[in-house]
Structure formats: structure tokens, C-alpha cells
């Protein structure tokens, strides 16, 4: 089979330095919103933040490492299972459970990632799907340990007993720190190698970078941050169900990243915010929000493959030129 040359990707326009001003403003605005708005909105914002982290972690794999993952729900869900199982089954203290979530997700990322990087593109993607379904099967069938379909509930006090505002603030801090770390990773020498492998594995290989090793590192890192998001989600709701590792969360994550726009760091942020807004607002007035998402997705791809992040970046660039001129 022949394949056309991979089309050139839109150049990454984001610069290396963290835009502290923008970050500060966004974090401050979110924090204020948490304390000003009604509880329902606080609830929604917290959930959006958790998914921003999940989508950004998935974005590391999709946009930069040149891999696909059809099973990222696993690492998210295992974050929640990590704390639920250790606390409910092994009587670990809460703080240890909080550590166990991301650790379990990282281990899963390492193992499944190791298997998947042996293959390329679509076969690797299918293997991540197969691994995910096996995990889902275990979570779903092993009643005595994972609680089967009814999951595990009540292993921690919902939100660790914090008020919605304080828990929202905690999530905000964790997510912000995680995103800054992810940003550092993407723009570190390691991040450059990950991107090089993602864009042209042959050329990167000629420079002495092993595709499998580099992709595995990226996948594991992504697993870790997905696990952090999943742990937050588990604590947020105080429960865990097999669905958390299932196909729906995987699909939601994929849709978020693709909506936000591939090959941009902010894809996860825009994607998650818009996806969850559509979920919360559109579904409130209009039952068919999946239809809306589907149509938005189609139009984004066909009209502007760089996604929403592409639009915003272009707008920012335009404004920057304006102010400098």
C-alpha cells in the first residue's frame, strides 16, 4: 500500500514562554467565578476544569507524539479506581489513596503504552482500544473487588468534605499546576523530541531518537495527568463506576481535543470548555446536543482543521500585530 506524504501541519504558533499575564487573569477570573456564582455553576466549572486537564493530557498524545489513543478513558477512570480501591478495599488513608490514583493510571499507561508503541498508527490505536475494553471488562465483571456495574461508592466524603467553592479552588490549583507542568514538558528538550518523533519518526530516528521509547514516555506522562484528572473526578463525585474507564469518556475526550483543534497546546482547554458548555447549556434547552456537537465538529474540520484554537491563535496574533504596529 502506498501512502501520500503526510500533509504539512499548521505551524505551532504558541511561543515557548508561559504567558503569565493571560494565565494569571484566567485563573483569577475562574477563582472569582467560583465564589460569586451559584452552586450549580460552581459544580459545572469544577467539572469543566477536570476535563480541561483530561483533554490536555490526551492532547499530548494526539497532537504531539503522533499516536492515537482510543482508550484514554482507562487512565482517567483508573485514577478514580486507584483511590476507590485502595481506600475502600485496603483501608489506606485518604492521602495515600489520592497518590494511588495517578500512580495506578501511570502504571496502566506504561504497560498499555508499551504494548501499543510496538505498532503504528491505526493498529496501535486499535490496541489501545482492546486494552481499554479488557480493563472495562475487569471493572465490570470482578464484582468482589471492583464492585462490578454498581461500582464503589462512599469511599470518601464527597469533595473530601470541602465546600463546593473550596473544592473548586483546590481543583483550580491542581489543574493549573498540571497544565503548567504539561506546558513545560511540551516545550522542554524532551517535548521537542516528542514532537520530532510525532512529525517525522524516520528523521527523528536518524537523529538517534527511538520512536518507541519517546512515544512510550509521552503516553505514560499522558496517563499520569489523565489519572490526576480522574482522581479529582472520583473525589468530586465520591464514587466510581466501570463507565469511568469506558468508551464514553474516551470518546468525549477525543471530541474535546478535536473540537479544540489539533497541534495546539490549548486544544484541550478550548475543547473541554466548549464541549461541557454545550453539554450543560445546549442540553438544557435542546435535547439533541450530540447533534450540535457533531455539526460543530464537522464544520470545524471542513472549514478550519486547526480548530477553535486555530481561530483564537490567529485572532491573538492579529491583535498582537495591531498593538505593535
Amino acid at each position, binding site marked *: 500500500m502506498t501512502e501520500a506524504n503526510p500533509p504539512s501541519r499548521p505551524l505551532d504558533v504558541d511561543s515557548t514562554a508561559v504567558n503569565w499575564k493571560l494565565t494569571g487573569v484566567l485563573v483569577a477570573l475562574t477563582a472569582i467565578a467560583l465564589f460569586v456564582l451559584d452552586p450549580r455553576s460552581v459544580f459545572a466549572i469544577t467539572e469543566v476544569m477536570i476535563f480541561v486537564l483530561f483533554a490536555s493530557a490526551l492532547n499530548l498524545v494526539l497532537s504531539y507524539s503522533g499516536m492515537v489513543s482510543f482508550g484514554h478513558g482507562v487512565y482517567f477512570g483508573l485514577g478514580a479506581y486507584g483511590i476507590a480501591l485502595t481506600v475502600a478495599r485496603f483501608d489506606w488513608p485518604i492521602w495515600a489513596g489520592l497518590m494511588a490514583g495517578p500512580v495506578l493510571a501511570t502504571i496502566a499507561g506504561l504497560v498499555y503504552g508499551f504494548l501499543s508503541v510496538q505498532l503504528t*498508527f*491505526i493498529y496501535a490505536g486499535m*490496541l489501545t482500544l*482492546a486494552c481499554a475494553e479488557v480493563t472495562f*471488562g475487569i471493572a465490570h465483571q470482578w464484582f468482589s473487588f471492583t464492585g462490578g456495574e454498581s461500582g464503589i461508592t462512599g469511599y470518601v466524603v464527597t469533595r473530601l468534605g470541602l465546600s463546593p467553592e473550596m473544592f473548586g479552588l483546590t481543583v483550580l490549583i491542581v489543574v493549573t499546576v498540571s497544565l503548567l507542568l504539561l506546558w513545560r514538558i511540551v516545550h522542554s528538550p524532551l517535548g521537542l523530541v516528542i514532537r520530532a518523533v510525532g512529525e517525522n519518526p524516520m528523521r527523528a530516528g536518524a537523529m538517534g531518537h527511538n520512536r518507541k521509547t519517546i512515544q512510550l514516555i509521552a503516553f505514560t506522562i499522558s496517563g499520569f495527568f489523565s489519572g490526576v484528572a480522574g482522581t479529582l473526578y472520583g473525589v468530586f463525585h465520591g464514587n466510581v463506576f466501570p463507565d469511568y474507564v469506558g*468508551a464514553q469518556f474516551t470518546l468525549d475526550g477525543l471530541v474535546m481535543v478535536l473540537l479544540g483543534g*489539533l497541534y495546539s497546546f490549548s486544544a484541550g482547554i478550548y475543547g473541554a470548555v466548549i464541549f461541557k458548555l454545550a453539554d450543560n447549556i445546549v442540553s438544557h434547552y435542546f435535547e439533541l446536543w*450530540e447533534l450540535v456537537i457533531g455539526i460543530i465538529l464537522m464544520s470545524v474540520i471542513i472549514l478550519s482543521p486547526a480548530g477553535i484554537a486555530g481561530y483564537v491563535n490567529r485572532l491573538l496574533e492579529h491583535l498582537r500585530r495591531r498593538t505593535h504596529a
Partner: protein
Amino acid sequence: MEGVTLFLIASGLTLIFGVSLVINFAHGSFYMLGAFLTYQLYPHILYRTVPGFYITIILCGLIVAVLGLLFEVLLMRRVYHTEHLMQLVVTIAGVLIIRDLVKVIWGVNEAASPVPDALAGAVVIGGNYIPSYQLAMVAVGIVVLILMYAALNYTRAGIILRAATDDRGMVALLGINQAYVFSGVFFVGSFLAGVAGGLAASFEAVDYLLDTRVIINAFIVVIIGGLGSLSGALIGAIAVGVLKALGLLWVPEISFVGAYLLVAVVLMVRSFRRSVE
């Protein structure tokens, strides 16, 4: 029995992949449309008779095939030049859109289409009762298999299709319009999905979640058999069908994951073989 529908879906999926290299997530949605259309139309076409049943299924297959063709011409065609991921997005968006449309038209309840009266009984073969409907389905499966084999090997279109699976650049160089090949393969693939859906409407609970249930199974079949290979789809469908039946009989606890484990093993063996070569 499930094997027949699986084979039909998987063969469509694998044909489409073989030529266009598109992993068509929307394929399961076309299957679901076939099932719902059969449920809708059968009462109006010689209801409960065998000829009416076959006419309905073929008609629904054709309707779905036209929809598949429109999907290709209006949407997929715009993204062939982009990356695989972008193509995936379009098919996933297709899944979301079709699912909500199905919800609007047929609601969220399960729909079931009756088996034709003549096929409602059972036949005794070697002391076992085998429902006639299952035999009829197996017959359909064999007919489709023979037709496809003949079409692929002895017709001009089939030869072009195989050539395109092998090397689409070369086919284009030979002066064959690629756009027609791509559209044609979506038409045929969607037709197969529609027919499979029509057959399934009589024994499976048909609801708006059928698409994801079926597409994942179809992927398993296609991966086990090898992407782009028609005989692979047949072997994969049989393997998965048997595995599920035996799994339920012997170890129901892991029947759920058995097929996925098989996929993982097949993929790992593949990668191992390749690294040895």
C-alpha cells in the same frame, strides 16, 4: 448467527478501509439505520412473508447505500487529503449526528421487527432444534459471500477495487477516476451494513446505542482478520462468533473480554512478526 451480520458489517468496513484507508466509525451507524429502516418499512411490504422480508432488506440496504454515498461525496471527499485523524473526526461526527437523528425519528425505545411467519419455526438437524431464521441468515451470508467473491474476482469493478486496495496511486496512473472508486466502495460498504442491520432487526434489540455496540465488534473482526482483507473478515467473524458462544458456555465471566484479548494477541503477534522480518 451473529457471525453472519458481523461478517457483513466487517466486510463493508474492511472494503472501505482497503481502498480509502478511512477507518469509518460511522459504519455502525449505517448498520443501525438499516435496522431501523427495516423495522419501519417491513409492515408496508408484504408483511410477515419471506419475499417481503428479502425485498425490504435489499431496499433498506440500497437506501443506506445512497446515504453512505452522500456521506462520502459531501463530507469524506473533503478530508482525504488531510490526516487520518481528521478523517476519523468526520466519521465520529457522523456517528453523533446519525445517533441523534435516530433518537428524533424513532425515539429511545427498543424496536423489534418480526421474523417472517414461514421462518418462525425450527428445523431438526441431527437431533438439535435450529431456528429456521438462523438457517435463512446463514444462507444469506453464504449468498453474499459468493456474490462478493465473484464480483471481486470476475468483474471489472471488482478488479479495479482490488487493485485500488493494493496500490491506489498506480490505479490512478492507469487512468481510472479515483473519485468513482472511493464513492463506489462507500456505496457497496454501506449497502452491506444496511443489509446486515435489516437482518439483525429481527433478533437483536434495536435502539439508538446499537451503533457503538456493533462498530466495536466489527473492528475486532476486522483486526483479527487483517484490515483490508475480505477473507480475513470472514475468518474474523467466525472466530469472534465461536469465541463468544463458547465463552458464554464455558467461562461466562471472561466472555466479555475474550474477544479483546484475542485482538491484543493478534496485534502483538503481528508486531512481533514484523520486527522479526
